[in-house]
């Protein structure tokens, strides 16, 4: 059935687009467009410099109810995670992505954290992941699936803590795509995450925590003193 349907649908489209008369030129134009994947207009706000990107990211992420903690270096990450959990009265037991980028942080310095590694489970309250990139334009996190970065961690827990290196902050979505192409692999899933889960389906009243995380906390890690401080934290 599907073969016959395929031929019928494509046949109808070829007739409607007059494909027979321009087949070679049209195929070349489509092939070229796909190969070049040229950018369209990037808004000015998606073209800021490094400092401007960090400021915009924080502003945009906070505007959609994410919280952001700025820390000056890798050594401060475990403490920032522990502080956040204490401040929100969340359990210290957490599920962490088996991600070597996260292993580089000195978790031993936050001995109260009870860390398990793996994919997200139904019983998880808190998950900690890294991010492939962060996109300043709209305060968006870009996460990709993989053996070290399971997608379920992004959706099953009540609280999702994302550790982002300032070096992974890009200006616009297109910068994120170029970074992904540079890795040479296309993962099963690319998640653009902008704030915690929400719904306004009941009487147009916006509420956080519909099906995904109720809380999205972003720990933004500078490359040393001075880089990310100065903004509010």
């Amino acid at each position: 059935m599907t073969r016959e349907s395929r031929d019928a649908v494509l046949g109808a489209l070829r007739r409607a687009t007059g494909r027979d008369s321009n087949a070679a030129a049209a195929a070349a134009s489509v092939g070229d467009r796909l190969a070049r994947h040229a950018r369209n207009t990037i808004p000015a706000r998606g073209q800021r410099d490094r400092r401007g990107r960090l400021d915009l990211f924080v502003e945009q992420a906070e505007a959609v109810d994410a919280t952001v903690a700025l820390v000056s270096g890798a050594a401060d990450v475990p403490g920032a995670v522990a502080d956040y959990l204490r401040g929100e009265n969340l359990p210290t037991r957490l599920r962490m992505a088996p991600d070597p980028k996260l292993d580089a942080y000195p978790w031993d310095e936050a001995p109260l954290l009870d860390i398990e590694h793996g994919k997200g489970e139904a019983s998880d309250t808190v998950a900690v992941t890294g991010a492939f990139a962060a996109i300043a334009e709209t305060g968006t996190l870009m996460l990709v699936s993989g053996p070290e970065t399971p997608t379920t961690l992004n959706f099953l827990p009540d609280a999702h803590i994302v550790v982002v290196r300032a070096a992974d902050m890009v200006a616009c979505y297109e910068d994120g795509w170029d970074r992904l192409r540079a890795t040479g692999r296309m993962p099963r899933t690319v998640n653009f995450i902008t704030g915690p889960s929400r719904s306004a389906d009941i009487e147009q009243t916006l509420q956080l925590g519909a099906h995904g995380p109720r809380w999205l906390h972003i720990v933004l890690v500078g490359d040393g003193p001075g880089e990310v401080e100065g903004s509010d934290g």
Partner: protein
Amino acid sequence: MSADAPTSHRFPENARAALADETLQRSLASAKVGFRVRRSEAAARLPEFEILRDEARDIKNHVLAHLDLYLEAFETRVTERGGHVHWARDAAEARGAVLAICRAAGARTVTKGKSMISEEIGLNAFLEENGIEPVETDLGEYIIQLRHEAPSHIIAPAFHVPKAEVAATFRKHHTALDPARLLEQPRQLLEEARGVLRDRFLAADVGITGANFLIAETGATVIVTNEGNGDLTQTLPRVHIVVASLEKVVPTLEDASTILRVLARSATGQEFTSYTTFSTGPRRGEDLDGPHEFHVVLLDNGRSDLVGTELQDVLRCIRCGACMNHCPVFGVIGGHAYGWVYPGPIGAVLSPSLIGVEEAHHLPSASTFCGRCESVCPMRIPLPALMRHLREREFEKKIPPATQRWGLRIWAFLAKRPRLYRLATAVPLRLLGRLGRRSGRFRSLPMAGGWTSQRDLPAPQGPSFQSLWDRAGGRREKPV
């Protein structure tokens, strides 16, 4: 449910019932203001918004002129990544493809992300008939599924249901929960749905989502949600099925990014939706989660017939809902009156195009031609012009009653003869002006009760524009 036969042919009766429905009128009044304000604020915050609308339109026009080639490219990429593409000429073929995949997976329950295509093909009723339980997971869709209703808005499907009725619905269906629980606030209702649906997510054998975009460059399908339900739907079960119509394809990730910049801003006034997810094939070998199977059901259902015609522009639609949020007609009758899956101005064009002018001929006439829909459409679809085309089709097919067609013929005869037109209108106009001089308006008029039952007709004030023009020495082109 939504697989019920269309009732678009009963539009006048549907609309009258909607106007008399006080609950609906309250929901409509509160919903439309919020949508309009948020959209206009979001557009104002992005200086490049109008340029992006132009580019979004151009991307889709390019796609539609090369739709066969982009679909073939998309199919090739999906297959390379280990996914399967199933082509469906019509709703029955699409339903059949979904059922075959579910059967092969031994599925008993399927979770579903929000999908207008699923509504269009009547998937839920069909799965139920075949012993498979579909569970809608978008909060609004879940509410109306429990109530056996159709969506009344394409992005706010349950906006017509007040919270007290949501609570009553939940009490009726969630019988395992404490009957004495409080269900007064939207928060309590949301928490309850979250708890109930979490179990359904974890138990489902198959997850079905729609697609906002299909990416020819990579073979990705894209969903946009605020709740995260689509992601749980497509990540937890063993099989992920995407149902999407042909025109969802765009060339590249860059092109999708451009259209995404206008989508959320036009729909909800958000800068970006909470979750935008690109899915390419099934889980990779070493992945810890994600589906083992990935299927895309590509639906035509009359769309290929529109390509290359004067109605082609409607295929640029990205289902943001801005047209209905700004429509004065939708604003007083809501979505159900339109009688099929797509309400509002987009429905007034899409429904007659897909299910036929015979069934849906009333809808293009349910318009004041105020043009607001076109002015806010992120894809710049000329909705009033398309409605006009469809009205012409209706006329050509002799669907309007003979009196109406003769009336139009007489009017056209006069309108093409300005001198005669002025003569024929001068006397009635003067009469109306004199009769209505005191109050300035008419509360009722013979033969115009349809108009005056809902509003007053302003009385003509002084001489006509044409006579003022002549008196002021205005120039006149010779009528052709």
